[in-house]
């Protein structure tokens, strides 16, 4: 894409050299609207080129006409981005920065910039309104922000334009000298209520934030690269482009163009997309001061075939931050620099482990483990926290900043073109979850005195005996209570939770996902799945296809990652998961089994692409071979805190009084436990 600048009044017509550059697609020119139109014609009137023309209005062409800048392929907007992002401190820019030199004529430059932004907004609004015909124009008029029109006096300018004076082209935009806080809030509220794409490109060209309101949900994204915008162009119905130039002493210049589009939604969105795209590819300038403007929203970028995921243990991260800051920390304290590091390292997904609320029961349970778990050796009771998989509510606890803080963190992560994944624990909830009291029918209860025969797997509450959360072949997790997936109301409640999560983030990592597959539920719980009130109501369908469908209705790109064991990966993939852990691959890596790995890598391609390659597992059961220390291939490390798989088999066969099934799908390493 070529980036065309057209703020000045000069026409391109007489400049054959520039025109050639335009045709060669390497043009980055300054010029006036006439130039812009000409350039757009030369480029074949693509939407992108048009928008680039529309919004590239930044500087007078002459100011950019230094010989060096006319070399093909040179991005002038890059310099402009630096300039605009550094309005207050441009004097500090290195002398080699041509723009800094130009900026010494700051009055004219400042004014040109402001005018450029104003015109950009105006033109986008104008085109949107034209295309949307009467309906669009009507919307555009109705959505005008309640801001007074003034033009700020640029530094060095002798007199400001009179308040109330009309701007040059009153086409769906207003320019305000002081956008007061109240006005800003009002605008933001309006934006949040109004469905559609709201783009606010501000004093910094290289970074734009987008806000997308869809289905009553607000998505916020910051862009550092405009390309992503074009990907999501087909979504919105109204466009608001709001450009704010950098001001001083709180002054903000705003030029907002708004246009509503009726039947031409895609074009409108694409236009806005291209608008931002034209502004954005300017390279990030680390010297630029932080932005005052925000907003633009766009869908998350397409994931590559082989994405890279970073798992952050949120509570460890926040507690380390609190330690270094000397005060309680929240998600807001996670520094931008850390996120920048992740983005620059090439991560596509950030998995925030343990963001949901846990309870006191889990905490006390963890304290009891302190002396038993070798991985907890050396830590004190203050360092103990509840297991993140014993969740009392799918809400971010106040000490991490609440749901709002997660939203802000997501926006910061999105702005770096990464996705956010959080936990979803389908099999169980914490023992102190409100459902134990309010919805006991959501939970697995003891039938036929099962709790008397197997007291270690049940606990009593309110006269009922409930089952601890448990996997078929594992010991119960004694800080959790098992959910009853035979109960249709429970399924609806879990789907509701997924819908909520899908409205907040981009995906879930489902803890022990295979445990709520119908086959395993039946094997583990049998007739205990029947709802007490009416056994015929028992839901026997698969949960995951419905879960994926529900979540993706809210967020079409919602990711499902399964933590899975017992070679259930393929079954989970068929049920809608994007990626599944592969414990066998991990085991073979740990065992140094080169031939085994070779065999796994030769499996079918469709299977391979859905595998999550994990080098560290969190143990769902101490009876699996999870070393406390990271594996090294040769020789395999001694098993410090766990036992081996064969121990797990032994456990099952020797335990008396408990009904256990070894299902038909058991793989080789489970076979010894077959009756």
């Amino acid at each position: 894409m070529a980036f065309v600048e057209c703020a000045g009044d000069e026409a391109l017509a007489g400049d054959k050299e520039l025109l050639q550059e335009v045709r060669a697609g390497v043009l980055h020119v300054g010029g006036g609207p006439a130039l812009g139109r000409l350039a757009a014609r030369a480029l074949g009137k693509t939407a992108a080129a048009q928008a680039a023309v529309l919004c590239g209005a930044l500087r007078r062409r002459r100011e950019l006409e230094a010989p060096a800048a006319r070399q093909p392929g040179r991005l002038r907007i890059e310099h402009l981005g630096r300039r605009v992002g550094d309005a207050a401190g441009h004097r500090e820019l290195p002398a080699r920065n041509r723009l800094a030199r130009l900026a010494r004529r700051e009055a004219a430059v400042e004014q040109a910039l402001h005018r450029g932004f104003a015109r950009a907004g105006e033109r986008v609004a104008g085109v949107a309104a034209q295309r949307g015909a009467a309906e669009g124009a009507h919307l555009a008029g109705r959505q005008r922000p309640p801001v007074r029109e003034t033009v700020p006096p640029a530094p060095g300018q002798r007199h400001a334009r009179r308040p109330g004076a009309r701007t040059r082209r009153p086409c769906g935009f207003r320019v305000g000298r002081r956008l007061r806080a109240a006005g800003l809030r009002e605008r933001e509220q309006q934006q949040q209520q109004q469905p559609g794409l709201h783009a606010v490109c501000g004093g910094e060209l290289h970074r734009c934030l987008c806000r997308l309101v869809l289905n009553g949900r607000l998505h916020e994204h910051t862009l550092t690269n405009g390309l992503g915008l074009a990907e999501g162009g087909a979504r919105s119905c109204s466009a608001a482009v709001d450009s704010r130039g950098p001001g001083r002493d709180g002054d903000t210049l705003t030029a907002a163009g708004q246009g509503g589009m009726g039947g031409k939604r895609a074009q409108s969105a694409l236009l806005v997309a291209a608008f931002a795209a034209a502004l954005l590819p300017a390279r990030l300038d680390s010297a630029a001061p932080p932005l005052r403007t925000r907003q633009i929203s766009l869908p998350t970028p397409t994931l590559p075939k082989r994405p890279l995921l970073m798992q952050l243990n949120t509570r460890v991260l926040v507690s380390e931050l609190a330690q270094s800051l000397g005060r309680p920390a929240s998600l807001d304290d996670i520094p931008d620099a850390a996120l920048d590091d992740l983005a620059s390292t090439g991560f596509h997904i950030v998995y925030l482990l343990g963001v949901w609320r846990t309870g006191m029961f889990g905490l006390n349970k963890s304290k009891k483990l302190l002396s038993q778990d070798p991985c907890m050796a050396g830590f004190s009771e203050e360092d103990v926290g509840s297991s993140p998989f014993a969740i009392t509510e799918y809400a971010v606890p106040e000490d991490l900043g609440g749901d709002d803080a997660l939203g802000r963190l997501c926006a910061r992560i999105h702005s770096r073109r990464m996705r956010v994944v959080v936990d979803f624990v389908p099999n169980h909830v914490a023992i102190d979850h409100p459902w134990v009291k309010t919805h006991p029918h959501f939970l697995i209860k003891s039938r036929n005195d099962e709790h008397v025969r197997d007291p270690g797997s049940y606990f009593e509450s309110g006269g009922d005996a409930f089952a601890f959360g448990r996997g078929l072949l594992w010991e119960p997790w004694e800080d959790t209570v098992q959910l009853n997936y035979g109960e249709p109301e429970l399924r609806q409640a879990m789907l509701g939770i997924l819908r909520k999560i899908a409205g907040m983030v981009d995906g879930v990592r489902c803890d022990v996902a295979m445990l709520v597959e119908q086959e395993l539920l039946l094997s583990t719980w049998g007739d205990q799945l029947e709802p007490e009130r009416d056994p015929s109501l028992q839901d026997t369908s698969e949960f995951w296809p419905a879960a994926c469908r529900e979540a993706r209705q809210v967020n079409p790109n919602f990711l499902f990652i399964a933590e899975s064991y017992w070679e259930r990966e393929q079954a989970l993939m068929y049920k809608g998961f994007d990626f599944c852990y592969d414990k066998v691959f991990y085991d073979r890596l740990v065992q140094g089994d080169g031939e085994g790995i070779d065999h796994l890598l030769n499996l079918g391609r469709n299977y391979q692409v859905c595998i999550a390659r994990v080098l560290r597992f969190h143990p769902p059961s101490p009876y699996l071979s999870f070393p406390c220390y990271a594996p090294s291939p040769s020789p395999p490390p001694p098993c410090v805190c766990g036992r081996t798989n064969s121990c797990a088999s032994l456990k099952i066969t020797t335990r008396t009084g408990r009904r256990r099934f070894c299902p038909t799908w058991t793989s080789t390493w489970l076979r010894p436990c077959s009756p």
Partner: protein
Amino acid sequence: MAAAVLTLTAPGLHFVHDGQQDGRQRRVSMHITRRLPENEDVGDDRLKPRYKTLLKAVRGAALRDGAWERCHVYERLGDGSETPCTRVMTHLCWSPHEGGGPFTEIVVVVVNYSPIPLNVRIAVTECGTGASTISELLAGRMCFLSDRLGPRTADIDGEALTST
């Protein structure tokens, strides 16, 4: 590191736990909100820079989004004969511009997952299908070879690669 190379280049989602890239060894218990200070946790100081190099090496379109294929590996025995080798995992990724683009990136990942050094031949040119086989990609072109985990680079004629 061999395991890390495999997990970060095989197909699928590449999962990195925070701390893994720093060479931290001790697994963070799910019941703890702290981890050991980095200097007490890192056993091998060489891991961190190696991970840094590796994470840098696995960026780029070829490894992230390109075609992926296993390569045949033949072990060279003392008598000069060759035998298929499964102890060395090799796969190949190439950038999506295969054939058409002016510049094609081919990444060859070779992992010797055995405790002993092996002398092997990697049949790179057998990869690819139809019109976009690797040998066709290489034919008549100059290749710039660089070791992504080390400093070595070389310019080689593509024909020479296909013929050996």
